[in-house]
């Protein structure tokens, strides 16, 4: 009886304020889509970190005849200098930070270069002599790169010691900025959504003030009076959050997995639909929570006894 009555009230409230309800749906839809996008961006950053930090190496570049930077004096690193660096890498002090390392000769570097830039005209300008020989070091813990840089960059014949994570950090900074922008926009839109829900509920309560007055007079409990209004807000926000969830899943399915993964091919991992599905309950919960709290604040004015 009571449940039926409450649901009837909710239905009539939603019908009466249909234009406001639609605007609540749209605003929550847009704002929660931004929230979802921000969460997905963070997930993407996490995945890329996991993927790339495992592959990121510390490169110890050795001098060529053309270098005058670092410890180089336009003479190529001699074999004894190379051996000294290798000995350092194998020494007790450094070995425990190092998972494995390998030596890359100019010829190998040249082959890799040719493979990587096969489509580019640069490839034809490069000869093996211009490319540095190098040690490629995989660390046990990628954050220990500074130790290696400090202990090796002073050695003779070493041009430069480079932590490749430096390149990645720039990419992550860009992605982070994008996700913070999304969060900022989402926050603004959520404020608008909350205010709009509050306004909608006030309108709804105003149009039913006779019923509310009589309910209070005959002793309907506050919970009974406010439940239909809160449900009204929650239902509108729920529809919005479902739309946002659908949008997020569609973006991942068609843009990320469809377009981006064919464009970028296998250069990195991308968030998948399974990640998007994790975002869905978060969006629904955020939408419902915001709607319920703003509606209950809005209706409380009508409940003062």
């Amino acid at each position, binding site marked *: *009886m*009571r449940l039926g009555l409450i649901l009837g009230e909710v239905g009539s409230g939603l019908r009466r304020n249909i234009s406001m309800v639609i605007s609540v749906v749209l605003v929550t839809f847009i704002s929660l889509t931004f929230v979802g996008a921000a969460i997905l961006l963070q997930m993407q950053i996490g995945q890329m970190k996991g993927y790339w930090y495992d592959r990121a190496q510390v490169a110890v570049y050795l001098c060529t005849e053309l270098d005058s930077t670092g410890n180089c004096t336009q003479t190529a690193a001699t074999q004894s200098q190379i051996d000294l660096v290798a000995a350092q890498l194998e020494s007790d002090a450094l070995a425990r930070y190092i998972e494995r390392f390998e030596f890359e000769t100019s010829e190998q570097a040249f082959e890799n270069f040719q493979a990587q830039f096969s489509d580019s005209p640069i490839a034809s300008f490069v000869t093996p002599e211009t490319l540095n020989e190098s040690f490629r070091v995989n660390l046990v813990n990628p954050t220990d790169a500074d130790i290696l840089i400090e202990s090796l960059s002073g050695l003779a014949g070493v041009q430069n010691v480079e932590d490749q994570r430096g390149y990645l950090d720039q990419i992550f900074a860009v992605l982070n900025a994008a996700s913070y922008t999304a969060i900022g926009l989402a926050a603004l839109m959520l404020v608008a959504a909350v205010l709009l829900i509050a306004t909608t509920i006030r309108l709804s309560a105003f149009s039913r003030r006779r*019923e509310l*007055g*009589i309910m*209070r007079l*005959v002793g309907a409990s*506050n919970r009974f009076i406010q439940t239909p209004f809160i449900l009204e807000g929650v239902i509108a926000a729920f529809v919005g959050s479902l739309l946002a969830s659908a949008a997020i899943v569609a973006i991942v399915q068609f843009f990320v997995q469809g377009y981006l993964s064919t464009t970028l091919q296998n250069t990195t991992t991308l968030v998948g639909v399974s990640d998007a599905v994790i975002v869905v309950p978060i969006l629904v919960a955020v939408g419902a929570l915001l709607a319920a709290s703003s509606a209950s604040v809005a209706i409380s004015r009508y409940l*003062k*006894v």
Partner: protein
Amino acid sequence: MIRFDAVTKAYPRTTRPALNSVDLEILKGEFVFLVGASGSGKSTVLRLILREEQPTQGAIHVLGHRLTSLTSRKVPYYRRNLGVVFQDFRLLPNKTVFDNVAFTLQVIGKSRGFIQEAVPDALKMVGLAGKSNRFPHELSGGEQQRVAIARAVVNKPAILLADEPTGNLDPATSAGIMTLLERINLSGTTVLMATHDVGIVDQMKRRVIELISGQIVRDERRGGYQTQAVPVQEFARYAPEEAHR
């Protein structure tokens, strides 16, 4: 049943209080008229009993509840013991007579079976048994007020508050409403009615409490609208126990 102890009610931003140190006791089963000019504090008394307002000073006891210390969570449950009737009926225009009366029972969570029994009983009692499917705008003023009374008493309240229930009605219709209220009173419900209607008060010969500027100036057992006996202060000199009732 209802007791006011030195109740003062001052509304914010006004200099003169709406009620000024009012003492009042109404017993179970009494029928009491509350008379006085507009602004004398009649409605404030009713609002205080309904606990729509809290007194500035003093204590109010109704049905064993001390209203000043009643938590707002408990107020709805307290109000289920009261029935209220207004001058302007306050019916829901989009509901039928039956649904208007049933609404009050629905919102306090009564079962469907109870509603199906209680609402026709209440409508029969007010003499509207055949009109349960009409809408309020299809009824005369007197009939609308009968619906409002049916709504007020359907839950068998211990106290019925009526704020000028005949204010919008012609004398003949008013007489019918008063007969109805009298019948409700006879069944054991305490009735407190604020009114301007001289004829009704004079005819009914019931207890009359007169308010002027927020103070009780007269409390007569079988009074009329105008003071017929000596003023209460004079009266008190001769029969103190009666005047302080």
